[in-house]
């Protein structure tokens, strides 16, 4: 177990720079999720942590030791790949015992540790099977078993749940989190799924185009997104954005969209005439009398909640309410917005105001 420090890490492929000075500090025992859209560099960063990819600049340290030139086998890390990367010719037991065998541990110790890991992961009855005889979820657990038998300093997970079906993904999410609570080992976890990030992480690192956009606890990112990208990426369904400017009527600041729609504004340092992006999460919009008049486009009832897509001028706004709304497409209803839930971003810099 150890802390991990990623300091000003740069990655170049020839003349193309894909990682632009990434800094992440990971505390001992922390569950950190790297999240971002495809091509944001999150997997590359993880592979650099693992030593599978060289670093073009900066330093990576594991447990206060700089590991830049250290080969993967000497980093004392364990990794779970998206494809699980099980050895097809080895049984479950041999797969899980392989790292210990490579470390030349005595057979009794290997059997004991594999047995214990199999117990934890409910694999004890599958130890003699081959990977091809297992289901996706079982393979996933074998890959995790192979990681935990080593008792490494850091666990690396590269989109481990993407190949599972939706239901199994939820189960495995809980299992991984439980495992972390039990083992208290540092985990770095890569995913493109912001729900996984929100539910599992102690700390989320949101990345885009080889840069860190924001680092913080899941709810911090949800409540105080630092810019438009993070605001749109964290939270599902994603935040509504309306472009407009700050106006002042009788000394009171307000927001007017490019379309002329007036929306309520919280206390803000934004100045009159400033071009801004107005953000409001669908779950923070209510339906009621005296709200902003909108025209219903689509209503999607899911039972527990109702999602309403409605048009206010040219802007399509998405709301989620707990009530069952019987509005028909084309009907006019009112969207109620509490100014406290509004996020304002500068339109030019896309930064939070």
């Amino acid at each position, binding site marked *: 177990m150890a802390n991990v420090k990623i300091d000003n890490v740069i990655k170049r492929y020839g003349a193309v720079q894909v990682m632009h000075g990434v800094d992440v500090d990971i505390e001992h025992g922390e569950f950190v999720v790297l999240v971002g859209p495809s091509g944001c560099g999150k997997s590359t960063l993880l592979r650099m942590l693992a030593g599978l990819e060289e670093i073009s600049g900066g330093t990576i340290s594991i447990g206060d030791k700089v590991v830049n030139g250290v080969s993967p086998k000497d980093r004392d890390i364990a990794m779970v790949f998206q*494809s699980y990367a099980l050895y097809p010719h080895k049984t479950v037991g041999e797969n899980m015992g392989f790292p210990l065998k490579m470390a030349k541990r005595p057979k009794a110790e290997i059997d004991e540790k594999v047995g214990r890991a199999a117990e934890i992961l409910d694999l004890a009855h599958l130890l003699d099977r081959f990977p091809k005889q297992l289901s996706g979820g079982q393979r996933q657990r074998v890959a995790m078993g192979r990681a935990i038998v080593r008792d490494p300093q850091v666990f690396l997970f590269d989109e481990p749940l993407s190949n599972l079906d939706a239901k199994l993904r939820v189960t495995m999410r809980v299992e991984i989190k439980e495992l972390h609570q039990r083992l208290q080992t540092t985990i770095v976890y890569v995913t493109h799924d912001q729900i996984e990030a929100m539910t599992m992480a102690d700390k989320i690192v949101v990345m885009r185009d080889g840069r860190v956009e924001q680092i913080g606890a899941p709810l911090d990112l949800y409540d105080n997104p630092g810019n438009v990208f993070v605001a749109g990426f964290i939270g599902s369904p994603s935040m509504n954005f309306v472009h407009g400017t700050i106006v002042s009527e009788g000394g009171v600041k307000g927001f007017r969209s490019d379309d002329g729609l007036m929306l309520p504004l919280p206390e803000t340092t934004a100045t009159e005439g400033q071009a801004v992006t107005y953000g409001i999460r669908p779950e923070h919009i209510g339906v009621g009398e005296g709200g902003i008049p909108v025209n219903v486009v689509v209503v999607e009832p899911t039972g527990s909640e109702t999602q309403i897509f409605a048009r206010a001028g040219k802007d399509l706004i998405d709301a989620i309410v707990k009530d069952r709304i019987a509005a028909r497409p084309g009907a006019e209803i009112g969207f109620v917005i509490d100014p406290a839930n509004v996020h304002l971003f500068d339109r030019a810099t896309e930064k939070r105001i």
Partner: protein
Amino acid sequence: MHSKRLGWLLLAPTMIILFFFGVVPFFYVIWVSFHQWNPFAANPGKIFNWAANYRQVVFDAQLLASLGVTFAFVFFAVVSELVLGYLLAQAFMKDFPGKAFFRTIHTLPLIMAPIIVGSIWKLMTTPSIGIIPNLLQSWFGYNLNIGQSALAAFTVTVVMDVWHWTPLVTLSLIAALVSLPPDPFEQAQIDGAGKRQIFWHITLPMIAPAVVATVFIRLMDALRTVDEVLMLTGGGPGSATRYIGVHIFKEVFPRTNYGYGSAISVVVLYLTIVICWLLYVGLIAPRNTKKG
């Protein structure tokens, strides 16, 4: 029903050809092997003589000697081809300037007829005019004469076979290596395996089916080598390179001893099957039963 009949119809030409050029000659050879048949003897017809030919096979000292050198030849040739082929395949997996060019010229021996290969090597190894004896003489002072030294002749036939057939091994191993998923290899690095351990624990088991298939092909080919060796050494000096194919050829053609030649062929076929079966049982079957 209709599609099934159409299937047989489409297969029919191949099956008819295979029947007449494969199945019929096979049984004909077996049938002939039970006869005494020498068309240039006083009695040129086939005379049924039970298993006399097989009895002769068992007591044929020349044949046993021939089998001995054949196995030595096959062993050294196939093992060298496998090791060299794997190393070349690994080299061709990497990127280097001129890779496509080298890969192409390295496969050229494959498309050459064995008789041509034999001729080339004969020219290259003939003392006084061949490049190989000349270079060996001027560099190491070694006098290579495959017409006199049994060991030299044997070695040159092995080298010739390696030269001719290594590209086949390389190609099939490249195909096997290319099709391997990269993840288990990265995983093995993380799991603490060094290069050698990765080879023994991951690479080799994962390409084993391709390796075994290649060994089977090379084994069967090497066991029936005739033309190259016949051209190069004629089976000599003495009977140092009188491999089983050469031996059969000499029994059947110059001596026109058809019945006996057929009997040896059947025995060699049987031996080939036994060797392949042993290899299969030893290498492939344990993996399959373990999986069951």
